[in-house]
């Protein structure tokens, strides 16, 4: 069953940052990439995605510029900033700690 990314508290930001670490993307591409990569196990809701992008832009983790999409249409492209890269590292570590702790409980060796 597919999981809505917003259900994993605080991980949406990390997922978006990770997506952008491969290069600039527009909002739709971010959603698609996450869906494809997780083999549709993760559903990215637009209602959470765009506010998250705007929030992170305000925090300075990502910046946006208008550019050309693959199909030659004007699209708002987001890219990671240096601060965002640092934030991604921090969130990844945080996630590893969290997942490890949860695993130790749910999947005891």
């Amino acid at each position, binding site marked *: 069953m597919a999981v809505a990314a917003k259900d994993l508290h605080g991980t949406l930001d990390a997922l978006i940052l990770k997506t952008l670490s491969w290069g600039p993307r527009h909002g739709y591409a971010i959603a698609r990439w996450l869906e494809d990569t997780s083999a549709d196990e993760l559903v990215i809701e637009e209602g959470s995605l765009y506010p998250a992008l705007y929030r992170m832009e*305000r925090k300075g983790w990502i910046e946006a*510029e208008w550019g050309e999409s693959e199909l030659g249409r004007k699209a708002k492209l987001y890219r990671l900033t240096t601060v965002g890269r640092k934030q991604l590292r921090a969130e990844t570590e945080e996630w590893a700690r969290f997942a490890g702790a949860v695993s130790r409980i749910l999947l005891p060796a």
Partner: protein
Amino acid sequence: MPRPGTFGRQLRSLLWKASVADEVDAELAFHVEMRTREYIARGLDPELARAKAVGRFGDLNRVNDTCRRIGEGRERDMRRAEWIHEFVQDARYALRQLARMPGFTAVSALTLAIGIGATTAIFSIVNAVVLRPLPFPEPDRLVRVYTNRRGVDGSASAANFVRWRERSHSFSELVPVEYRNFTLLTGDRPAEQVTGLRVSADFFPALGLTMRLGRPFSNEEDQPGHDNVVILNERFWKSRFNGDSGIIGRSVRLNAVEHVVIGVISPAADVMTADANIWVPIAFTTEERADSRKGYLDVFGRLAPGVSIAQAQSEMSAIAKPLETELEENRENGVRVASLMEVYVGSYRSRLFILLGAVAFVLLIACVNVANLLLARGAARGKEISIRAALGAGRGRVLRQLFAESVVLAGIGGTIGLLLAFWGVRALKAVAPSEVPRLDQAGLDWLTVAFALGATVLSSIVFGLVPALRTARSDLQGALREGGRSSSLVARDRVRQLLVAAEVALSLMLLVGAGLLIRSGIILQRVEPGFATARVFSAWLALPPAQYESVESVRSAYDRILQEVRAVPGVESAAGITVIPITGLSAQGNFIPEGRSEDPANSISFNFRVATPGVFQTLRIPVKLGRDFDDRDVAGSPCVIIVNEAGAKKAWPNENPIGKRIPGRREPNGQRTMCSVIGVVGDAHDDGLREAVRPQIYFASAQAPEAFWFAMQRSMFILARTTGDPRAMTKQLQAAVGRVDPTLPMFDIRTMDERISASLATGKFNTMLLTTLGAIGLLLAAVGIYGVVAYFVTQRTGEIGLRMALGATPGSVLRLVVGQGMRPVVLGIVVGVGLAGAASRLLASLVFGVGTRDPLTFVAVPAVLGVIALAASVLPARRAIRVDPTKALQS
């Protein structure tokens, strides 16, 4: 927080300047469209694909709103960040510019620091003394109520007070206070003299005073017979009882009567009654309630809601009218209601505001000076600014840059100024006379710091704006062409000269004020007090009524004390007197000389006091006619008095006053005893050296009635003329008093020299402050004049060289240059004299012995200022005659 990138925003604004809302719309529309294509690619019908894409998106409007809100927040953040960034950039650039000219920066910052520091220090004192409200709830409703007789405020009698309280409706509370001295005995220490207050039970609630410990007086305790309770002042409780909270319920002896300590009062009370250590219930007896002869109550009131002082005054005047005849010896006794704040700080208000005005002048001079320096620098930087303008810096940008320099400069000056103010307030508190109320509370609080900040900002605008505008406006092309020497130089010179003229005028006004006060001080020093002050010891004694009930016991105690004092080796003579001259504490009474009608017009107001034989010898007040009191003048013998020359002249002009009589005390049968003049003595100043000598009457202490001793709390000053330093005699004299009564403490021990200088302290303080400010102003003005002339010389080096090459003598060049410097000085002096003539009237209450347009001051000050200005312009001008013509012409 990191600064958000500006790239996207700049790009967008360059490309299509879309609003955040448009961007969000476009972005979300793009998303929906991409999703639609995705579904079409998967084989869905376009209609259906679009519907599904929209459906999947969810609440499009809500997302749009959220995104827009966040986006707009980001725009705001960025604008703020950009602004701060640019400001920091400007400030950094300004700092670099200032660091490049350390001399200019040091002089300007120090000039501003002096101006801001002096203003802030004085403001902090004005704030503490005058502006801050009294520390009581609703302080503006608190009033003093006086018995007022022919325009002179006095203390109220108990009979008057109780009737005021019964009949008035203007006050929610009306409370009496009597200052009293008590001998305190606790068993663990020798007896000591403490000052205290008798107050009614509702005194504490009336002023809103709260208890630190225990409780206030109850209404029952405010009744005679139930009043043996006492409340301690917190300060006294700490110093005398080590802040022991077990004190409540303990018993102490006050004037030989047991009193139970029931409370400790919060220090707020100190504001009005700084020297009161203990509080007891006033508990009027029936006799006191009926007594209208002795005025000894200070009456305080709290206005009832909605009642103004004027309304209270008119009600009280109406109440006082019938009381004039209803009560004994109450004729002409009116009532005056005055705001407590006015009473408390009234006389200091005008003085301190004059000072504040004076320091504002200093700040203004400082600003003018810095403006002048900036102008000179602006001229030197003409080329730099022209280049910046040529490279595309807009006029606004240049202006902002120049202004940032002013702000940074003012910031540095303000910071140093605040430090100066911190030390300044300390220094002022150390040298200020002690009677200035609330001065101890002056310090750098937030309001003072805000004031300093305001002064800094204001001064940066004042000194920065004119030069910045001028510099930015200068003819840029012209400046480039002429290599920095633009045609607007002449106009700039005019502005600079006007600034110097303003400086000179301002410092002239300050110096005239200082000069008038210095002149007054010198004249005051020459005033003869009417008695010889050197080598006279004085101290105050008060006999506790419990041990010295009868008049006889009081008299004999003072007789024996004086005998002991006279027997101390090193004492030339000794005497007792109820009020020492110069202290301004004299009791006043109205007397009609014998043989004149009872018409109030015939009554003469005398300062009166009671003295023992030997007082004139001890104080070296000359006996001009007749004799001093002696052993003949005792209780049973005819009443005798001694008057001073001023009194004799007023009462019996062109007559021999010896043997003349005035009515003295009232006997039980209602008749007044007539007292005959047996001597006339020299005039002694009573109310300080400034005040004219008043008519004075001395009564013989051996003949003073009980009522008098009661009113004076059985107290007297003991005076002793010594052969050596009177201060060194304190121990022996205390021991002498102790041989008569070991429980009797001495109080207010001071030499007469000390009393005289205390009476002059306030005047000296004012003079010192105004002189210091004047000197600072003069110094700053001199710096300003120096700067203008030095600048003139630098600018005209070529011209001067040419003149000299053409044969001009050094003398004529010097005259030219100095003349250039002195022109604004002369203008400033002329304007300053005119303004000072108008403004000096503000000092009318402070000057003594000279008019506020004292010709000497008005000639001497401009002369001194002129000489200093001349020196300040000759100094840099000498550089001009050392100019080497060949070099000057080459450059």
